[in-house]
């Protein structure tokens, strides 16, 4: 019986991409490298963000997400590689190209003694010409109109975060780069942010890159996902395809039926490992690598073989994919076969097709 092991990324993901960035891409990086002294933060990032989509940029702590965003916003200089914004090359000195970009990098940063509105006012003096009326508009977007005149030092983390998002949207950019935008937001704030970003992409046709460790949040928002680890993109693609490809169904049978059931279940995904637990409290659970929609089909096949499922849990989520790919804590099957298979909660349906 197979044990649970991390699924390696296809080998071709580790080869440098040579295709030219197309105009349909809001952001494209090719072979992007960045070192801080002897420490290598990015080891050749090939990232493609389609225009008009929400791109979920995921990775463990220290994987290079923030470094990548800093490179995209001209805060850092790459050691190698290229960046394209909206189909044309972008370098450190092409500052005006950033007029189309709004960003919130790491923590929201403001003058603590100025009010929220004043901070946006002084910020609007830099970069692209910005209509003063836009300040009230973005404050309203993020639900901060009521506290606009209070000094920042009286704001909670969530309020600063909202203001950070407002600041990023100040110049009505075509591309929003948001680094952990949900940090400190209460549930209401997260829903509001989600709606605002959906409006931003869905209605206005703009592009959002959202880096977050809140995988559930990204799963609810993103159309396309890129997963980065050790400074390199290890998986990228439309979220629904990713979920489908990494889909799984958990099925429980009587422990004495496991060998027979394994023969039936292996037929469903001959190319993917079949995970099972043959002892302990979780004995009898299988994890089959098939699309969740095929759960009923599995049940029928088992019944046809005279095996009756005691439990059936269809579904897959970004979290399990992320953990499998990055091999971090909670790694699926880091222990032997006796370890319980991960509980796979059915997540909300992915957003529209990419």
């Amino acid at each position: 019986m197979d044990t649970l092991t991390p699924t390696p990324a296809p080998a071709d993901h580790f080869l440098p991409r040579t295709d030219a960035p197309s105009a349909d891409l809001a952001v494209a990086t090719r072979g992007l490298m960045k070192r801080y002294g002897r420490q290598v933060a990015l080891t050749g990032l090939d990232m493609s963000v389609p225009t008009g989509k929400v791109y979920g940029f995921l990775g463990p702590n220290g994987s290079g997400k923030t470094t990548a965003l800093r490179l995209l916003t001209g805060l850092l200089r790459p050691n190698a590689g290229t960046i394209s914004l909206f189909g044309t090359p972008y370098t450190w000195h092409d500052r005006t190209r950033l007029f189309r970009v709004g960003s919130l990098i790491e923590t929201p940063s403001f003058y603590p003694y100025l009010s929220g509105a004043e901070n946006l006012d002084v910020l609007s003096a830099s970069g692209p010409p910005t209509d003063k009326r836009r300040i009230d508009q973005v404050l309203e977007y993020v639900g901060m109109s009521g506290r606009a005149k209070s000094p920042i030092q009286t704001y909670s983390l969530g309020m600063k975060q909202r203001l950070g998002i407002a600041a990023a949207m100040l110049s009505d950019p075509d591309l929003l780069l948001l680094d952990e935008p949900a940090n400190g937001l209460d549930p209401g704030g997260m829903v509001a942010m989600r709606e605002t970003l959906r409006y931003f992409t869905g209605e206005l046709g703009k592009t959002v890159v959202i880096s977050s460790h809140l995988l559930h949040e990204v799963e609810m928002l993103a159309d396309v996902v890129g997963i980065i680890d050790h400074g390199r993109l290890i998986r990228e693609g439309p979220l629904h395809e990713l979920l489908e490809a990494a889909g799984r169904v958990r099925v429980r049978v009587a422990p004495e039926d496991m060998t027979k059931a394994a023969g039936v279940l292996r037929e469903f995904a001959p190319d993917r490992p079949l995970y099972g637990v043959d002892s302990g409290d979780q004995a009898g659970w299988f994890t089959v690598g098939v699309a969740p929609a095929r759960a009923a089909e599995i049940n029928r096949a088992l019944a046809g073989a005279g095996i009756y499922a005691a439990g059936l849990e269809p579904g897959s989520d970004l979290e399990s994919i992320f953990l499998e790919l990055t091999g971090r804590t909670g790694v699926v099957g880091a222990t032997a076969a006796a370890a319980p298979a991960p509980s796979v909660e059915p997540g909300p349906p992915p957003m529209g097709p990419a």
Partner: protein
Amino acid sequence: MRLIRAELLKARRRTMTWVLLVVALVLTGVIYLLIGRAIGGVSCALGGVLRGDQGTCIVEFPAAYGLIDQFAFSTLGGLLAIVFAAAFVGADWNWGVLRNVIARGESRARYLLGKAAGVAIVLAIGAALIFFFALLMTYITAFANGVPVASPLRGNGLTDMLANLLLGYLVVLERAALGFAVAVLLRSQLAGAVVGIVLYLGEGIVTTFLTLTAFGRMFGRGGDFGSGLQLIGPEWFQYLPMTVGNQVLSSAPGVSGNLASGGIEGLFLKPVPLEQALPALLIYLFVAVIASVVALNRQEVI
């Protein structure tokens, strides 16, 4: 213009601006009150000339500008200008707001020059306020001690006043530019202010030491002191960044020698002529601003 307007808003709303102004005014007031207690009506410590057989002092202008310039521009004003400029620009790193500006596509050079212009405008207002407050304190102290004061507008009074104000402002501006550059290079308001103050005080100590050394050297060569103490120099160290400001002030109308610095070099050294001191001061000013711009253009902002 919109960048300068934004910088002025930041300066106006920041408590530090007002604290430094109040500190400058209070210390100026205290110094004049202490002088007032000491003079007892017969000294010319406020700046003036001895008139009459009884040696009565009349405070006259431009002579009184010596003391005013010393506090408003050289010692107190110069030091506070360094602290203000360093804290004003360095805070952008400490609060992380610089990355917002750069990520919006703003030119680093334009942003820094806008900030420098904002500092220059605030310092112009601050220097003028301290200058006129010191002028007022001259009157108050003199009257309190029964010392008559001549009008500062008599004769070439207005020209003298403006010349003192302008030269003093340039000195303050140069010192602020040095604090500004240090803060940009160190990317910190606290480090900028502390290093700026250390440089200011350190140069004062070094200059005093070198002055005494130069004088001792001359004394050792058997200089002719028969007809009284002879001034020597100018010496190379009078062109150092902080000291050269005092040399500029020494040329202001009414300021005797280079005593405006409050240091001992005025006792032993000839002041550097204005036609040399002023270009040197302006070179330091521009080099400091250009160095700041070059440094920021090369910096990675984290």
